[in-house]
């Protein structure tokens, strides 16, 4: 793993979304208050750049006409088909089981009664180091070694 500086905290607006390049890979970087999140900038459903999407919340309901907004801005909506990804986990909440291609661990989060989909956008750990936003991400050489070891 290599630590990469991807942004300056000062210049990054709250609820901002930015596309950044790290070691030849593109990330979608999101700021919510003092927290930063990063997803690989590709929608696992259709391949769109998630950084072109917008943040939204979740809505819970007890029935027609009942709306209870929650988790404000914690969902990233893909610009192509509106699929929603949880910025904290990358979990899609949009597609049910039928097209499941991989199994994912399900964890309890607010809104746990809703259906989670099988798609998960890859998340990348982010931290704030003083004035900079830093991601831990393997560089190109490390990825080549990793791929060779897998093969």
């Amino acid at each position: 793993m290599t630590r990469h500086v991807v942004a300056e905290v000062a210049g990054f607006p709250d609820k901002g979304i930015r596309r950044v390049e790290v070691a030849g890979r593109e990330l979608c970087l999101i700021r919510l208050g003092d927290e930063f999140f990063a997803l690989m900038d590709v929608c696992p459903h259709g391949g769109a750049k998630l950084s072109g999407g917008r943040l939204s919340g979740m809505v819970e309901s007890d029935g027609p006409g009942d709306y209870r907004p929650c988790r404000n801005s914690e969902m990233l909506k893909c610009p192509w088909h509106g699929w929603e990804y949880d910025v904290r986990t990358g979990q899609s909440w949009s597609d049910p089981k039928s097209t499941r291609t991989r199994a994912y661990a399900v964890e309890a989060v607010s809104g746990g009664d809703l259906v989670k989909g099988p798609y998960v956008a890859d998340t990348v750990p982010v931290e704030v180091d003083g004035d900079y936003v830093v991601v831990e991400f393997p560089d190109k050489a490390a990825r080549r070694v990793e791929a060779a070891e897998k093969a």
Partner: protein
Amino acid sequence: MPSRTQLRIDADFHLPQAAIGDLLPFLNEHWRSQVADRELPSMPFRLTSYPANSPLTRNPSYEGLDVSAALDKFDTGIAVASMLHGVVALHNPDMRSALLSAVNDYVAKTWLDAEPRLRGSILVSGEDPAASVAEIERLAGDKRFVQVLMLAMQEIHHGNRHYWPIYEACERHGLTMAIHAGGLYRIPPSVSGWPSFQFEDYVMQSMVFENILTALIGEGVFQKFPDLKVVFLESGFAWLPTTIWRNDKTWRGVRQEVPWLDRKPSEIMAGRVFMSLQPSDPPGPDELRQIIKHIGGTDMLLYSTDYPHRQFDGGNALPEGLPEDAIPGILAGNALKAYPRLADDPMASRAAETLEETA
């Protein structure tokens, strides 16, 4: 083929339409005199989806058979019967209610009393939910009525909250909500305006049901009324794969707008919506098999003859291509799930026993 001991429940069986004169004994003095003064007996009050001379109107298999003989011929154990009557299209809400009550009473006295294999439909107007609820309350004690019946084309689509008192009454009394093809003839069958020819009108009927299904799902009827069962009559079903898929696909991207849809629409409608088998609209057995594969089985399909209309040739209302092991469900098992009142019906219990024996 299934054995002849398998009990058959026919979900779409039409009683001959009563003439206005036949309804007089079921009207009070005021409405009897209104009917006479306004010469209503000279009006046919026919819903004209089946014009008298159209080849669709009369199945030659039924030639010369009355209702009971038709039930005999098709070995029908129970027929969920309807009398679609043009009085439902009247504008005067009081006259309409009086005549609809007369139709329902006429059905009970003339048909349900006489033929034990018939079960009835409470015909109501979607235009006046308060009057429709009152009519449901008036007749709900007669367990021979197993469904409430509305037409497919009304002023407001069926998902709308306007109708919810009717759905609430259906759910409370274990009555299925049936929606039959046809309309009031003052609303175009197409959402884009009036067609010019009967040909267009007839084809467009199935598209109306696509709209209705999407509306029932989207507006949350199945969430609001968790025990309500809905039956589409003469809707066809070959259109289901694309409609279900488009509902599921679109829902994924717009969940926040309709947050009561907590699952895929296809999962929400499972076990809640049923459709009559006739008219069977796939072109042939191969296409029928494909459609069944697309919609995930035959649990939605209810055996029907559409007596006396001509939807099939010969004496077998089961189209070719149905999986053999699905036939007991189509003939009776699915209907027992679609009609809560049939579950308590002694004749239907026989059907359930027969099903268990064959399983």
